[in-house]
């Protein structure tokens, strides 16, 4: 019974529909369920919001257009006009992470962004994609990325590996930031919620804390989606505009 109340129990992966292909476990888990729910919620939000596409938008349509303009401005500010073709991808990433984080804020739900494999998979897609774009746009000139101009040639054997490691650390820092924020926030919420019952009458204090933390978590959920997206834009900008 004790482990059911563990603050970490919320991160357990539970297979809902077991599927096995050979030795692979491809079960449809609660994580997959919430990814599907995220897709449904984000699509509903956008498609239904724009269904009437009135010239004078209503509330729902305003929010839809606001989120579009928000990301469009971000892409233009960070990448410039060259970033326009990549807007659909960046907007999708933002919506997916944002709605995933927000689903996680509903009690008894599952936060798939609190698993590093999920965030790392997204980060590695961004990383590989950006690197491929860089090579397509600049051919082998892209490698000059790792050799800053004005550096004496004798420093190259030391500096190039350091720059490459620094470049390779990008997907890790990108994914760890999102995952650690979600993991820490949700664990903290559960730990304080656990105090509410065990402190009896004084449980009001941690209860107030949980209420405040929930507000903070919603801000963090939005902020981390924003950070993930803007870092994607910055990486794209580096690949498109070499120095």
């Amino acid at each position, binding site marked *: 019974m004790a482990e059911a109340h563990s603050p970490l129990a919320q991160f357990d992966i539970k297979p809902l529909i077991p599927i096995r292909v050979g030795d692979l476990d491809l079960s449809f888990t609660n994580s997959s369920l919430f990814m599907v729910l995220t897709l449904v919620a984000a699509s509903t939000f956008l498609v239904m919001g724009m269904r009437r596409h009135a010239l004078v938008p209503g509330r729902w349509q305003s929010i839809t257009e606001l989120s579009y303009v928000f990301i469009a401005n971000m892409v233009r*500010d*960070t990448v410039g006009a060259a970033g326009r073709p990549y807007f659909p991808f960046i907007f999708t990433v933002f919506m997916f992470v944002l709605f995933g984080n927000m689903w996680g804020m509903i009690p008894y739900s599952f936060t798939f962004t609190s698993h590093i494999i999920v965030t790392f998979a997204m980060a590695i897609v961004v990383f590989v994609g950006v690197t491929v774009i860089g090579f397509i746009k600049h051919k082998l000139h892209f490698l000059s990325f790792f050799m*800053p101009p004005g550096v004496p040639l004798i420093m190259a054997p030391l500096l190039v590996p*350091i*720059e490459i*490691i620094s470049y390779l*650390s990008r997907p890790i820092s990108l994914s760890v*930031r999102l995952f650690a924020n979600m993991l820490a926030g949700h664990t903290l919420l559960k730990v304080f919620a656990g105090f509410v019952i065990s402190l009896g009458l004084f449980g009001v204090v941690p209860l107030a804390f949980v209420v405040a933390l929930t507000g903070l978590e919603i801000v963090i959920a939005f902020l981390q989606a924003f950070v993930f997206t803007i870092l994607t*834009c*910055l990486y794209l900008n580096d690949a498109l505009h070499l120095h």
Partner: protein
Amino acid sequence: MSDEQTPEPLRSLDARLKDARDRETEGSRARDQAGAPPKSALGLAFRVSVEILAALAVGVGIGWVLDRWLGTGPWLLVTFVLLGGAAGMLNVYRMARGFGYAAGYRKTDAKADNNEGT
């Protein structure tokens, strides 16, 4: 209607042009802000530790894999741990100076001219 009065659409055009120009300059500011270190101490500490750990992890990973592949004992691991630490420091340095995550020194080039003058 007197001659001095500019027609309404033209006057608003001026304002709109100014808006558009302001937004252009704001654009580079948004980029700088995104690369700038976070304002809260906790956010800063978290970001510094993530940067160092990520670079170290990559260094350890490369060294370990190369060692297993080439069978060169612990030496490549040792080398790449040091290089990874250096890369982590480089990341933190860039973050603290507001270079963002860009590898390379695009921003220093622009600044170098100013610094040499002063």
